[in-house]
């Protein structure tokens, strides 16, 4: 049984924030879950994926976030409790349905989880998705702890059904990937059979309907504001002349700082969890009770501006500060020490920051070698990039490389350097069209298989229709690798329990109207290079599908064992380091022993036997696997 299906009510478990959200939804009887994977939200979908196999819950990995939200909206309008999770930028993709779904509302409770990523641990921006609540007029909850994440996920369904509106559950990376103690509540069995009631005057947003529904939405928004004012997720605690308002993860830093600074008897804290609609009545009471107020929230001054509006509306002149020089930044995530220091400075509390050890005091150290993430040994993406680089070199061609979002974005690193432009999912195909048209230069765009299904297809149709001229290389490794090997519509090789049909990328590409289509195995260097050269010579839109399974996926999900390895022969005793200078497989390294018999060495613990290196260096040859499988397994 999946651990999140436990019936041990009242027992405490150490749960990941994302697991707590899933449990909360299960305790609300969620029956329908959709997602498109994206860090830091991925574990939500992954848990539902496994849970759906052993319960009446329906779950799907949808092709993108817009599809996920609309699919969930269909189920919710039929009265089924649904949850739809995504990373913050995913909500941009789903913004179109979000805005009008707010007009028609839902019948079954619906929760939309958006996972923001302050500091951009694994994202292309750090936008503050709380503004989506304001933009859409939808209620929003922001948990500060794992326990609260579970409570809010459950309660969000009740709020959603009471208002007949979707509810946004907004998290940040530090909540999603925090582990905390959660007390388990009773499970509610999912009711997965809905009924769709035909009410065109509500659900079909022709202008006449939309005009009516916008008014309904604004009425519901005011009801939601009353709920926010009374919500137990919004609390006013402590007594004293100073005021601190905080939400989300930042609240934890505030709570610890107040204790650390010993100012418990001086501060009143407004902790906001139900943050939109803004609980103005509660905020007014808070403002009236404080001499001066500090607002602690990561990213944008969302609460700060709302507090200032509340103060202005009530003719209160209490100083309210948050973002600004010497205070908090709109950039990056916060940390406990920083929050403690700003609180001390703002309220004039004596405080000395703990002295940390500085390696600059270590006279011996100049520069520490860095450890950037890298494409794995045996990764077929590296092989494709090598084929492209050598084809360009041999034809003396320069090219511009729009790329996309996935493991292959790591192709930005030297020596591959196959990434010149990237803004969002799917932007490789479309920006390639613009760059090639504007410059007349050769453009080679890279997109992954899951990203192609997510948002590459419409761009490709556009490129065919508008006669754009570039090369698109679809890096098809048979899985959504970066986010943890989730399946996608093109999956052909899958574990037995995966029983869904596979949609052929080649057939889709041809159906889009592309005439020059090649399918290659990137681990065959000569054939891949030849395909790239042909595409370079064709002077029309070409698509190369570079197809080889992700080796991590093969090992972990499919259980494949390494059968052969490679080693460097004794003739490798020259100054030649071409293999690492051009290919840079992490299994290849320079012999640290200056008297060693070979210049290069292949790390047998990292080599997976892809056989790419022997295709460009004759000094490398295969060896039988003799070591224990555990080393590589």
């Amino acid at each position, binding site marked *: 049984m999946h651990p999140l299906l436990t019936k041990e009510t009242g027992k405490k478990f150490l749960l990941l924030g994302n697991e707590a959200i899933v449990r909360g939804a299960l305790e609300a009887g969620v029956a329908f879950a959709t997602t498109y994977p994206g860090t830091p939200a991925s574990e939500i979908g992954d848990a539902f994926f496994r849970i759906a196999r052993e319960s009446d819950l329906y779950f799907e990995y949808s092709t993108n976030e817009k599809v996920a939200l609309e699919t969930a909206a269909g189920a919710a309008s039929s009265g089924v409790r649904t949850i739809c999770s995504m990373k913050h930028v995913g909500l941009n993709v789903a913004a179109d349905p979000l805005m009008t779904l707010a007009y028609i509302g839902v019948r079954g409770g619906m929760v939309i989880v958006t996972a923001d990523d302050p500091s951009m641990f694994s994202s292309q921006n750090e936008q503050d998705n709380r503004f989506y609540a304001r933009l859409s007029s939808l209620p929003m909850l922001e948990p500060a702890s794992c326990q609260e994440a579970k409570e809010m996920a459950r309660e969000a369904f009740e709020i959603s059904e009471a208002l007949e509106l979707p509810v946004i559950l907004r998290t940040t990376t530090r909540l999603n990937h925090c582990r905390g103690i959660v007390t388990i509540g009773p499970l509610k069995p999912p009711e997965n059979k809905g009924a769709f009631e035909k009410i065109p005057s509500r659900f079909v947003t022709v202008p006449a309907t939309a005009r009516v529904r916008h008014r309904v939405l604004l009425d519901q928004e005011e009801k939601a504001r009353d709920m926010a004012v009374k919500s137990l997720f919004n609390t006013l605690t402590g007594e004293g002349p100073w005021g601190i308002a905080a939400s989300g993860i930042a609240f934890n830093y505030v709570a610890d700082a107040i204790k650390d600074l010993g100012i418990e008897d001086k501060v009143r804290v407004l902790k906001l969890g139900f943050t939109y609609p803004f609980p103005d009545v509660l905020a007014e009471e808070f403002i009236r009770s404080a001499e001066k107020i500090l607002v602690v929230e990561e990213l944008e001054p969302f609460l700060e501006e709302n507090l200032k509006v509340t103060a202005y509306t009530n003719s209160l002149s209490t100083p309210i500060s948050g973002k600004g020089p010497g205070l908090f930044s709109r950039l990056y995530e916060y*940390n406990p020490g920083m929050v403690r220091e700003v609180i001390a400075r703002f309220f004039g509390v004596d405080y000395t920051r703990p002295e940390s050890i500085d390696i600059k005091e270590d006279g011996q150290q100049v520069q520490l070698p860095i450890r950037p993430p890298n494409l794995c040994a045996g990764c077929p993406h590296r092989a494709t990039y090598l084929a492209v680089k050598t084809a360009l070199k041999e034809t003396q061609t320069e090219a511009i490389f729009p790329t996309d979002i996935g493991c292959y974005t790591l192709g930005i690193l030297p020596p591959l350097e196959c990434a010149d432009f990237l803004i969002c999912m799917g932007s490789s195909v479309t920006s390639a069209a613009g760059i090639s048209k504007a410059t007349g230069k050769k453009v080679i765009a890279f997109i992954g298989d899951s990203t192609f299904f997510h948002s590459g297809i419409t761009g490709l149709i556009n490129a065919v229709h508008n006669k754009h001229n570039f090369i698109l290389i679809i890096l098809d490794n048979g899985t959504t690798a970066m986010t943890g090997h989730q399946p996608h519509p093109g999956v052909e090789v899958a574990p037995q329990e995966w029983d869904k049909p596979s949609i052929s990328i080649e057939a889709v590409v041809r159906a889009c109207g592309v005439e020059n289509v090649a399918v290659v195995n990137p681990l065959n260097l000569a054939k891949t290079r030849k395909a790239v050269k042909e595409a370079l010579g064709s002077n029309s839109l070409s698509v190369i599908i570079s197809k080889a399974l992700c080796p991590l996926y093969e090992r972990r999900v499919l259980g494949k064992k390494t059968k052969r390895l490679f080693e460097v022969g004794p003739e490798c005793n020259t100054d030649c380091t071409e293999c690492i200078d051009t290919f840079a497989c*992490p299994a290849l390294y320079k012999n640290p022993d200056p008297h060693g018999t070979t210049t290069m060495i292949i790390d047998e613990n990292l080599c997976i036997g892809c056989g790419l290196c022997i295709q460009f260096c004759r000094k490398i040859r295969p060896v039988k696997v003799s070591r224990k499988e555990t080393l590589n397994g």
Partner: protein
Amino acid sequence: MDKYRIYLTGVGGQGTLLATVVLAESAIYAGYNVVASEVHGMAQRGGVVESTVMIGDIKSSIISDGEADVLLGFEPLETYRAIRKCSAGSVVVSNTVPVIPYGVAIGKGSYPDVDKLLDFIGSKVKRLITIDAQVLAQQAGAVLSANMAMLGALAKSGALPVPKEAFEETIRTKTKASFVETNLRAFELGLASQ
């Protein structure tokens, strides 16, 4: 109640995240409140993996510079890189076995002298404990158990209020059944190593 902030750092593949969970669960077993935090995403791709465990009355799940009570470093260069998290009062437990960064492996830059790295740390913190976790794990029967040897050394240090029995119980109940024996052996070897 006392508070303890533990910072864990290592390289993808070293099992730091499992060690994080085992440490957190052990502290819970010993009766403490716990919050932990992990950075996901790049772990498989040779990058640095950092995580934290807070024991006691703490809500914040991350650690600011100078505020770690204990630093558990699974790789000496990463222990050194993370030393900003420590102060003069910190206890550091570090593995001595390097994982060579790729840049160094291909001849760009050099790996610093491990003894010098550790000497600097030793001169700055309250206590430095070093172990060869790889050798201990091999003695235990699997290199993958090096993370458990690290926890053994941590338990022995006495820097945390978590008794060894709590670790042993957690290893028995929370690590993969087929690895429990090896993991326990590695933990005991770490415990006996100082």
